């Protein structure tokens, strides 16, 4: 009898039940999409913020600060360098997966037209195999997205070519296509200018060439003077700030947590472990700002998600309440022929729950699709599905449908069948 009545509702009032299921599906899809997007937005925005470039620099431990000052550098023979062979080790640290890009530099002053100019050797789009068997393309091109290049980027095979900053180009009257000769001590090299670049910073006065060409010119085979690393990091908190001061001051448990979280200080520490005699430091301008922006965006998305959830919950609740109340006549009749309150409630609830399950499942599937559409449109990459979103949405939909039925059920229990059947 019970099932026949339920079947009756779904066949005779199919249109109405479908409308309710559709509304529940809309709410559920909104909830699913927003929860998934919200959970993944941190990673996505973090990846976008990589456009600001490196957030860690690695330099030799005892590097003198003098080299940055008015050209007093090397020559004394006690300058410190890192070994180029150590580079793949960056991809062996605990958080190697979070290291997105890195670029080695070998800097030195050379003579061009009888005046000093900074020459930098680096990787542009270097292909390498890491010890873990991963293949990786990394270099300046990925890390300096804001550079304005007139001409073409160098590639790693262009050992006879160079790129000149706009400041240096103006000073020496160099244009793309020219050939320049630079001198370093006894050796000299000739490069064809492939491009002139504009960065709006100090690099505008530099000349860039390949790492190999620079090593040859400086006679520093296999050596580099610094590395810039771009890593995905977790925003700093109290623990990581304490750790950055002195990792040894942490308790064993704190140390473990810190080491196994992608804080910029933890990644620096791990780089120092992996590469001998180096000092890895966070570039505060990038690292700190990243954390601040990330937190804001996440909080913003949480609040918008909350609004969407409350909105869809109220919508569903509202419709459920309305549709149950409208059935007072039918229920009055049931009560008049002797149905107990419990039976009536059971009937109404079963119908609502069946509708909610149907709507919820459809909505969940639609919501996953919606999340991917958002991911593809905005970030051109898919949104990772959060496993917890399924139970969360299920509980939400069922609770909302249940709560939506409560006022209606109370009214149904209280009502007097004769009154209802008589009036209206």
């Amino acid at each position, binding site marked *: 009898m019970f099932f026949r009545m339920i079947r009756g509702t779904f066949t005779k009032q199919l249109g*109405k039940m479908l409308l309710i299921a559709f509304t529940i599906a809309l709410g559920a899809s909104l909830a699913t999409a927003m929860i998934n997007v919200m959970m993944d937005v941190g990673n996505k925005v973090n990846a976008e913020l990589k456009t600001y470039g490196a957030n860690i620099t690695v330099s030799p431990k005892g590097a003198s600060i003098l080299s940055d000052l008015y050209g007093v550098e090397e020559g004394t023979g006690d300058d410190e360098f890192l070994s180029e062979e150590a580079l793949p080790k960056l991809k062996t640290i605990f958080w190697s997966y979070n290291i997105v890009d890195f670029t080695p530099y070998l800097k030195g002053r050379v003579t061009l037209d009888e005046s000093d100019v900074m020459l930098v050797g680096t990787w542009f789009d270097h292909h390498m195999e890491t010890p873990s068997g991963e293949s990786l393309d990394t270099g300046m091109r990925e890390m300096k997205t804001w550079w304005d290049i007139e001409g073409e980027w160098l590639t790693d095979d262009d050992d006879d070519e160079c790129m000149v900053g706009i400041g240096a180009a103006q000073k020496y009257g160099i244009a793309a296509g020219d050939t320049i000769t630079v001198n370093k001590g006894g050796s000299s090299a000739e490069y064809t200018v492939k491009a002139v670049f504009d960065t709006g910073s100090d690099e505008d006065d530099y000349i860039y060439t390949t790492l190999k060409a620079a090593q040859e010119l400086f006679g520093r085979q296999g050596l580099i003077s610094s590395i810039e690393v771009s890593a995905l990091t977790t925003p700093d908190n109290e623990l990581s700030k304490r750790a950055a001061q002195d990792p040894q001051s942490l308790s064993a448990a704190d140390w473990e947590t810190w080491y196994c979280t992608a804080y910029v200080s933890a990644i620096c520490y791990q780089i120092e472990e992996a590469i001998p005699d180096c000092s890895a430091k966070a570039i*505060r301008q990038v690292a700190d700002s990243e954390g601040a*922006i990330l937190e804001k965006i996440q909080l*913003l998305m949480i609040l918008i998600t909350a609004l969407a959830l409350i909105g869809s919950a109220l919508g569903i609740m*509202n419709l459920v309440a309305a549709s149950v109340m409208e059935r007072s006549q039918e229920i009055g009749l049931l009560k008049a022929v002797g149905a107990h309150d419990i039976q009536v409630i059971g009937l109404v609830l079963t119908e609502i729950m069946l509708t909610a399950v149907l709507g919820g499942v459809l909505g969940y599937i639609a919501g996953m699709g919606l999340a991917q*559409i958002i991911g593809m449109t905005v970030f051109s990459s898919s949104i990772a599905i959060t496993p917890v979103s399924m139970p969360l949405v299920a509980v939400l939909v069922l609770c909302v449908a249940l709560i939506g039925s409560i006022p209606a059920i109370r009214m149904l229990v209280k009502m007097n069948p004769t009154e209802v059947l008589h009036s209206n």
Partner: protein
Amino acid sequence: MKRSSFYFKMVTGALLRKRSRMLVALLAIAVGATIVSGLMTIYYDIPRQLTRELRSYGANMVVTPADGTKLTYEEIETIRALLPAENTVGTAPYRYETVTLNSQPVTAAGTQMNEAAATSPYWNISGEWAADDSSIMLGSKVAQLVNAKVGQNVELEADNGAGEGVKNTYTVSGIVETGGSEENFIFMTDTALDSFMGDTDSFDTLECSISLQGDELSGLAERINSSSDRVNARLVKRVTESEGTVLTKLQALILIVTIVIIVLTMISVATTMTAVVTERRREIGLKKAIGASNREITTEFLGQGIFLGVCGGILGVVLGFLFAQYVSNSVFFRSVSFIWGLVPVTILSSVAVTAVACLIPMRSATNIDPALVLKGE
């Protein structure tokens, strides 16, 4: 007169008599309108808020003097006057001089500390900012080099403008850590460096952090350049270009999320309204039986829909603004401005949605045979 007042009575009467039904419909519309107005306010406010947030990346414009010259205090003030006050986060002038510390040559930078703190919020200072002319801050590499601690006194030596050797003792108030070249510098107030060097009006750069982007910012740089041929304003590409990229992405994110939420909510408002109207078939039947035309019934229902749409819309405008205000306060610690243009948009969209939602079931409802409905399905 009589006819229109009867119409009004019918429109409001139906709503007032069935209070629960009215509440359901009003709630649905108000939720929809709140979401529309709240999210639209946030969307319109987001570029302004994020541009300001992204200022944590530091200066986005640098003004330098023409080759071989220095900027004077007067010129700094002239440039500052050109900047829009409400968008200026900070403008820090820097004077660089070579000094000797423990017989090591180091660059000393003289600046206005409160402005430097505003333009470079990412500087990590152990200790305190140099507050007066007798204290200095050391870059962390300099501190390491001379093994200096906070609170210690250090002696600086230099050749002043007149070529005479000068000496002075300063207290280290803080150590600056940035991960960049600033760690190789000594920082002191501009007045301290001026009195140490014995001359004034010789700034090398002015770093500006301005919460504008794109064309507005480059336009500002051009205005500064054309104001005087003694100065050259450049944009810091790393910051400005990246900011454009990031801002576009974040704005696109908020836009698409807003669209998805608004569309879905509006559809669910429409279905709720449809359900509410469908339930009134008996009433329609009765009205037809006593001689109402289809047109009259439709007008009446539409009138009720529009009435509810306006009420819900107004409610939504208020609640939506409160929501946007709450979000802005808790995320950005700033308040949003009320956008008057959104009031008609919110009310019109809720009226449109309710009107459409009323008309859909009306087609089938007006075609019913009154006798059949009144008898009971």
